């Protein structure tokens, strides 16, 4: 794995790291442009595009109509024509409006065309619950995308990865989906100023331990790490693996850890049933069957839409306490 770039101790927010990476790619490559609702003059509803329109103008930071299908199609058509578009879908839930353009068009074009097309497009969006934004503004739908050959999918958990993965996505010659978590936008962390890549398809072990492997990604990395810290106080040491890229999955790192610890929990915020956890857990079971001392624990949201009321939503989102309980049970099993 590439060594982390130098940070010089500079700490910036996750959202700012995203913006910085994007601006640097636009600076470096005149083919990179951004399009989406409110990304131009308004600088994006989460402020992630602030200042870009002033700097790069209306053709490179394009305010679009509320037309998610056309936004993705704009990216696809421009990418096939040699540009390197970054198109924004604001909330991951809105991806569903553009699902044909993402899944039937962008993901398959190259293959259907016998390899002739190249589609260096990055779709950016924001997922996750916890803001009382209710059922249509809170989903984590990455499992749908990861099932589709032709797409790559990343969900960074921290500012360093947000910048590095975005740069890797933009530089990748395939359609990539970059998923921010809304509740991480303000999270600060060390981020090198110069551009750098976090390679696609490489997980990162954010905490080491020999008792239990916790495989997770996105915001759940933080809940899992808290849980692991709490467990350490009880003498249970966890490997916490941040997958970072979900398609392609870095199963090597996961399986190696599982073989060492023999006990695994997979954690995501998305609904548990049919979530990526099933793929990960069964993948591990296939590769590490003889090593496992207990059933793999899958933790995800319960089987309901995301409720509005904070008291219900809190119950819905998996948290450190729940993860800790499961790790404890797993270690004892």
């Amino acid at each position, binding site marked *: 794995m590439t060594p982390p770039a130098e940070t010089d101790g500079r700490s910036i927010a996750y959202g700012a790291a995203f913006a910085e990476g994007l601006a640097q790619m636009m600076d470096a490559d005149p083919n990179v442009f951004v399009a989406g*609702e*409110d990304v*131009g*003059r*308004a*600088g994006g*509803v989460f402020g992630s595009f*602030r200042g870009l329109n002033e700097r790069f103008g209306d053709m490179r930071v394009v*305010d*679009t*109509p*509320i*037309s*998610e*299908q056309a936004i993705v199609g704009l990216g696809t058509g421009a990418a096939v024509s040699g540009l390197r578009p970054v198109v924004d879908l604001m909330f991951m*839930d*809105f991806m569903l*409006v553009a699902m044909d353009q993402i899944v039937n068009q962008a993901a398959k074009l190259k293959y259907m065309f016998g390899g002739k097309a190249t589609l260096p497009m990055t779709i950016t969006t924001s997922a996750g619950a916890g*803001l*009382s*934004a*209710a*059922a*249509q*503004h809170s989903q984590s739908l990455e499992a749908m995308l990861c099932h589709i050959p032709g797409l790559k999918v990343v969900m960074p958990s921290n500012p360093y990865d947000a910048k590095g993965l975005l740069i890797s996505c933009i530089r990748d010659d395939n359609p990539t989906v970059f998923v921010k978590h809304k509740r991480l936008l303000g999270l600060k962390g060390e981020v090198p100023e110069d551009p750098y890549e976090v390679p696609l398809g490489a997980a990162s072990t954010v905490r080491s331990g020999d008792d239990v492997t916790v495989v997770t990604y996105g915001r759940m990395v933080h809940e899992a790490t808290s849980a692991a810290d709490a467990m350490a106080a009880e003498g249970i040491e966890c490997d916490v693996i941040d997958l970072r890229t979900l398609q392609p999955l870095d199963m090597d790192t996961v399986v190696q850890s599982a073989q060492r610890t023999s006990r695994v929990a997979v954690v995501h915020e998305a609904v548990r049933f049919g979530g990526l956890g099933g793929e990960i857990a069964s993948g591990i079971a296939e590769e590490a069957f003889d090593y496992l001392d207990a059933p793999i624990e899958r933790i995800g949201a*319960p*089987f*309901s*839409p995301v*409720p*509005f*009321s*904070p*008291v*219900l939503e*809190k*119950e*819905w989102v998996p948290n450190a306490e729940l993860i800790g309980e499961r790790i404890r049970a797993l270690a004892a099993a």
Partner: protein
Amino acid sequence: MDPSPETLLDLHRRMVRIRHFEEAAGRLAEQNRLPGFLHLYVGEEAVAAGVCANLDDDDQISSTHRGHGHLVAKGGDYSGMMAELMGKATGYCGGKGGSMHICDLDLGMLGANGIVGGGVPIAVGAGFANKYRGTDRVSVVFFGDGASNIGAFHEAANMAAALSLPVLFVCENNEYGEFTPRDRTMAITDVVDRAAGYGMPGAIVDGMDVVAVWEAAHEAVSRARRGEGPSFIEAKTYRFYNHHGVQTLGMKYRSDDELEQWKQRDPIELFEDRLASAGVLGADGAQAVHAAAEADIEAAIAFAEESPLPDPDSLLVDVYTPAVYSGAAS
């Protein structure tokens, strides 16, 4: 048709009730007493009021992310609404929906919607059911200028026309979609220009003039009730607060001047002047309507505040309907 004095008073009351609900919600949001997003309807009251005054409880409406005004205009209950906005068990949706999904099916209010354009096909489905049953009910869909650019709107409008359904399309053109002005996202000025492309009649009305809205809606609703199919009304209007919440962003996406000019045409003030001149309702009478709404909203806030939170154990309730099919309906 000219509205009767009763209708005029009714229109006034509906607008005032919307305004007070929204102002109260805005205040609560500023005080961090409401979770989630809040899209206020202040400034646009004449549209919901003028349209809904033509509807019965049996007629349906579908709404947008900016849905409180539509529900109040349709007769919605302040207490159920306020409790919902606070995420309480006594709210319209038991706290599961919040501002963006507020609804009252008994009043034919098929829900606010968090997806721009998402409610348009649903209203068309309701219109289909009305025609299917041979009733003279009408369904109305409210949507924004921005929403007129999304595919679901287009498909639903064409389908309503193709099947000649009793549906009224009401475009609330407030010149912005979030923070982006209309002229950056469409090459036309009047959204109603799209109506002809579906083969339905269209009209532009001053959305700050509740009587003008009422008249246009009256004609369109009557037409639909007579079985003559869908129509399109574009109401030119403006939101006095920000896209969401009350405060403007740091960023300036519209001028103070523009906002001021529109505020001078406050639909309630305009209408109260008119009611006074016409001798239908004087300043005192108007004041009494405001005071009543104010009292109601205070009571609703108290009710909501005192209401219990949902039981966390209800998290998985109502994902599915357990009810078993009991044979053909009548």
